[in-house]
């Protein structure tokens, strides 16, 4: 019994760790897509940010500087996406894809040229990383059964970026649903003409959205390279940007459901690692690949309308033409 409980706690703990980049990227995508800009470049922005964070932290020895540069790099890529999609009304999917492919190539090229370690950045000392931190009272409460242990073993003991990710969900919800900017953001994704008629700048709002999106992807990338791991590794995002996009769709473009989708996908990932080579009673060994593919399968099933309906922001993917 005790053993089962610690297994459950360990799995939930891992869930939170692997969900963090998904949560940040899903919130990032939410800002962009709610403003009407399709963003499949979460992956590329996160990868570039991870590389920037790994490089800067390795050179300067400062995790915070790494985080800052990661955010800046990712914002710049977000603005490139905006420049193509908003200013030049280019195809948003093509632009996103270009950023993903560019990031995938450039991070390795620069990594090898600068650090000569096969595309990896130098391993970081723990002083140059965001290390796990114990929340107040964690050790005191750990003796309290169930809840105290849950607090100590699952909630406590993560790096600051994990808590930032969780906070970002609340913040996103507040900004999108409780501020004037959020109202305008949602309006510009549903009916940009109305926003334009009200005398607001559609481009301005959308640029703000892609910049926020970039910033959040930047934090996600930094988390991968200088918190969860001790260096940047080539292709380290490994499709998580796409999983986050799937989670965003799964959460029907709303912050709290998207958070739950991220946690569910993260949980699947954590379980997949744990189930590797384990024979389950009655079922036998579950193929890891099946569990890994499950987020994608579920998203396809959801989009096909077999479990509820996911309705995208109405103006998504269509460039706004002000002058006729």
């Amino acid at each position, binding site marked *: 019994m005790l053993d089962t409980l610690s297994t459950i706690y360990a799995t939930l703990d891992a869930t939170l760790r692997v969900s963090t980049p998904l949560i940040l990227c899903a919130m990032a995508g939410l800002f962009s897509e709610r403003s009407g800009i399709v963003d499949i470049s979460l992956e590329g922005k996160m990868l570039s940010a991870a590389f920037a964070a790994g490089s800067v932290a390795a050179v300067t020895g400062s995790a915070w500087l790494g985080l800052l540069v990661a955010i800046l790099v990712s914002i710049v890529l977000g603005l490139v996406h905006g420049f193509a999609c908003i200013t030049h009304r280019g195809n948003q999917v093509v*632009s996103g*894809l270009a950023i993903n492919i*560019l990031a995938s*190539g450039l991070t*390795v090229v620069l990594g090898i040229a600068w650090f000569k370690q096969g595309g990896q950045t130098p391993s970081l000392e723990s002083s140059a990383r965001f290390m796990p931190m114990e929340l107040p009272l964690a050790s005191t409460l750990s003796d309290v059964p169930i809840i105290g242990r849950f607090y100590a073993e699952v909630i406590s003991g993560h790096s600051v970026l994990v808590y930032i990710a969780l906070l970002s969900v609340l913040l996103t919800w507040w900004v999108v649903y409780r501020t004037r900017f959020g109202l305008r953001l949602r309006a510009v994704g549903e009916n940009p003409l109305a926003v334009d008629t009200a005398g607001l700048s559609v481009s301005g709002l959308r640029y703000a959205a892609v910049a926020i999106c970039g910033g959040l992807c930047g934090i996600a990338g930094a988390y991968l390279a200088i918190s969860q791991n001790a260096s940047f590794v080539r292709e380290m995002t490994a499709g998580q940007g796409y999983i986050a996009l799937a989670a965003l769709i799964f959460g029907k473009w709303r912050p709290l459901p998207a958070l739950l989708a991220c946690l569910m996908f993260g949980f699947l990932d954590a379980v997949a690692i744990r189930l590797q080579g384990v024979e389950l009673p009655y079922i036998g060994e579950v193929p890891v690949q*099946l569990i890994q593919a499950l987020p994608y*399968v579920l998203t396809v099933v959801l989009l096909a309308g077999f479990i509820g309906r996911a309705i995208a922001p109405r103006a998504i993917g269509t460039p706004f033409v002000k002058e006729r």
Partner: protein
Amino acid sequence: MNTTNIELPAWIEVVVIPILNIIMALFFAGLIMLAIGVNPVEAVGIMLNGAFGYQEGLGYTLYYTTNFIFTGLAVAVAFHANLFNIGGEGQAYIGGLGVGLVFLALDSVLPPILLIPIGIAAAALFGAAWAFIPGWLQAYRGSHVVITTIMFNFIASALMVYLLVNVLIKPGQMSPESRYFAEAAWLPRMHEFFGLFGVSITKTPLNMSFVLALICCVLVWIYIWRTRWGYDLRTAGFSESAAVYAGIKPKRVVVSAMCISGALAGMVAVNEIMGVHHRLIMNFPAGYGFTGIAVALMGRNHPVGIIMASLLFGVLYQGGAELAFEIPKITREMVVAVQGLIILFSGALALMLRPWVVRLYLLVRPVREVSA
């Protein structure tokens, strides 16, 4: 000045602007090379020599070109129906599964004359099947093909890993790949084919699928511009409501366009699995599906443009490999970065330079046209 409504002569739209876009992309690629301390001019020299300078290089260039023609055509056919098929990667992978299953079952039974057409058909059929589902879901369930094909790439990858690790792996072997097919199932290499006529050329991976790719170009051209199905395809892609008035069923067009697109992407397996590897291996599409998007964008979705764009990417791949060999600072991923730049400038920013070109054109245009 709003320049979007000013018409330009076709040769400027189809030739000058695309070339300017590529020059922009290559300019930024040059900047990246400068940033890592490599002389871009020297690099281009090495690449061109590596791609064309000797027979083996040329063979590799055309071998890569073959893949890009298939995936470029795949993306282009879908584009004409206003569909964005990002799933070429997964469709190629599943096409390989088709080839693998058929050959593992039949390669000791049938003669080459039957095996090879069956293999090609299997590649096309499996690729088409993998594209059919996203197409059907878009047409009849309203889910967007972009998202579903992205998801299907990952699902294909997971499925293939599972099958190769657990089912199709050659028993008693560590690396996840199938056994070699019997030689009867190997697609003849180009040097073997030329050897039949007594012409000796260097041995390279280039095989008969290159000819198949060129045939596909002709067939796609006929299909899109010379048949009523192609007319349906273009009409539905241009305006769904107009298509309905013309008695075309857009849903069927969506499904059939995706199937043809998937079949073309699946043909990558003909080159890779039947022509080169002769066994089913992990991750053989290696990004060719994504490159197809760049190829289609550069080639303006026309078979002739696609052949030229494929050749350019063939040069980039083969020349890039040569470059990585000659200059240790540069790795093969440089080609991936260049590819990203080309997709950005030829695709998303395709119209960035147009206003400038229009202004320049208005300046130098003959006077009588202004008064007209």
